[in-house]
């Protein structure tokens, strides 16, 4: 698909978007003057959406007249190489969000990171283990402990009861956080030694 085609498709999409917004602004709302109450609640979004529609139509006219650089460009919109790396990232993000719904944040995050570091980045195992394990531990400490914002855990909810017990009932939770990091470092060091021995 060339940039020229993409520009037209995007303009059509924005026209549909504007029409949709205009329609939903009139949905049970007044778009004009309401006696003694001033402009109705649909007034502002409706006329803004009309403006969006006019802009999109202007873009199409300019596209037809080949007035903009995008409407003259025959370059590929997204090259194959870009499509692979961007597509993989978007797919992985979709899987991550779906994973948060079903298996919880603290299972989905390591899996996402594992996939990204190993498959996309091709990093070695010790680095992958350290980061894919360490980042979720850091996120847990930051959100659940420091900010007190619980992230969705889905079916792993019960696994965290003992952790919460430690977190709320002792003042030394930071020791456990450091311990988790130390454990991860030890594992990744062990993996490094093992892989080196096998290669040697």
């Amino acid at each position, binding site marked *: 698909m060339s*940039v020229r085609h*993409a*520009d037209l498709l*995007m303009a059509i999409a*924005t026209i549909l*978007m504007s029409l949709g*917004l205009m329609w*939903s*602004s009139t949905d*049970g*709302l007044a778009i004009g*003057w309401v006696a003694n*109450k*001033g*402009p109705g*609640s649909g*007034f*502002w*979004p409706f006329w*803004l*959406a009309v*403006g*969006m529609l006019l*802009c*999109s139509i*202007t*873009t199409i006219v*300019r596209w037809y007249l080949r007035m*903009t*650089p*995008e409407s003259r460009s025959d370059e590929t919109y997204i090259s194959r*190489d*870009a499509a692979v*790396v*961007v597509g993989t*990232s*978007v797919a992985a*993000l979709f899987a*991550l*969000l779906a994973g*948060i719904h079903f298996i919880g*944040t603290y299972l989905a995050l390591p899996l*996402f*990171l594992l996939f*990204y*570091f190993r498959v*996309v*980045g*091709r*990093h070695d195992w010790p*680095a992958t283990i350290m*980061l894919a394990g360490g*980042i979720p531990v850091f*996120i847990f400490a*930051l*959100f659940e402990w*420091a*900010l007190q*914002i619980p992230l*969705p855990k889905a079916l792993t909810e019960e696994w965290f009861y003992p952790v919460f017990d430690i977190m709320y009932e002792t003042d030394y939770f930071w020791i456990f956080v450091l311990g988790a990091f130390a454990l991860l470092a030890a594992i990744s060091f062990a993996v490094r030694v093992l892989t080196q021995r096998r290669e040697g």
Partner: protein
Amino acid sequence: METILTSLAGGLLQAFEPLNLLMIIFGCTVGLFVGAMPGLGSVNGVAILLPITFLVPPTAAIIFLAAVYYGAMYGGAISSITLGIPGASTAVATVFDGRPLAMSGKADQALTAAAIASFIGGTISVVLFTLFAPPLAEFALKFGPPEEFALMVLAFATFIGLGGDDIPKTIFSILIGLVLATVGLDIISGKPRLIFFDMSGFLHGINFLVLAIGIYGIGEMLWTLETTGGKVIVHKVRMTWRGFLANVGSIKGYIRSTSLGSVLGYFVGTLPAAGATPASLMSYGLAKTFSKDPDSFGKGNVAGVAAPEAANNAASTGSMLPMITLGIPGSPTTAILLGGMIIWGLRPGPLLFTENPDFVWGLIGSLYVANLFTVLINLAFIPVFVRVLTLPFTILAPVIFVLCIVGGYAPTQTMHDVWLMLLFGIMGYLMRKLNYPVAPAVLAIVLGPLAERSLRQSLLSSQGDVLVFFERPISAVCIALAVALMLYPLFLAWRRRKEREAAVSGKEPPRE
């Protein structure tokens, strides 16, 4: 003047409180890192880190974010010089002379000059900020709803007149940001509006962070993943104490153009559409024009590194002036800061100076301190930051993605918003590839609720008479300026066409 000095002294004292000082040092370091990484700029850093600042009180939070903003302006130069890729768009002009200097083995000279120039730019602009902010806020106290609305129209008009992007697409970007801001319960009538597909997640509206993190976090990462295919070559930097002293000594050579660039950068920075990138380019041009040796620019002149770096730092301070005094952000980054202030329960605008003086003066005081600390941290750790640049992007990208997702969840704690954020990120990426500017949309979603309220209040008090915007002098001036800005691109196109016609008929040779 005396009151300004006492307030400033109070602000400085506040900046030296342990928590705030810690925030400044931490923020500067993070900012330097964010600025130095290609693909991450001040706006990305502030958008992604804002949810985490709920950890500390508002004053400490804004001090942290302002320090990140500041540090990022310094940090951009590091990758411009050592990689030849601007670390953020604001450091584009630094590449012109920074790259040739690095290639000829003078990277340390360029880095030192950039840091010192940033410090000069920062200092001059902070002083200007301190002098201009209180009178401007006092003047703005007279503003009623019509003036507020006219001012916002003016802010958006700067994008049309000075943004330099495709005009219909710029207006579209502004309008969609404003419409997205109306989703949820109407603040005046209490009626639910634009609840798409009857999903209850839209009832609490679309938080500006959802759009900001979507576009500047996820969309930006996708964009950078696409563009950073090639390998990068880091230039070696050798720093010695004697060399450093010699470099500091060479300030004399560029101090005049740098100071001029700082003042220019500050005023350009106050305009919402202009900001740090054009300011640094203009400052570079200015330094070249006034130089005794303009031919050496682009081949490795230290003044060519210093001038844009001073200007982009000055512009970042400048963009805070309208945010603090008028409630109108001067850049996308300050738009996110403004949104953050609303979350923290502060009402941005002229009343901030009288109602929350601690907050305002704490911020101003912290700018002085942050400026000092950033230059020290920067100079001390240049070798470390250069090492960091070799970090593969496949490690940084997933970490940023994870921060975006948990950060997008934090403000409202619904997965609905996280999905929406991903959608905005992908849309932003696709639209950006077609030259739709994204910054106006982010500014619009922050200003949207304020703009709608002031418009409806004005119309209500005037009984629907639109003339209210033209009868009051301040608002009439703003509207007139806005109309002039909107017509400016048309005027340019008309003149260009006329010149082309003249060139075709052969009466007059074309100029450039």
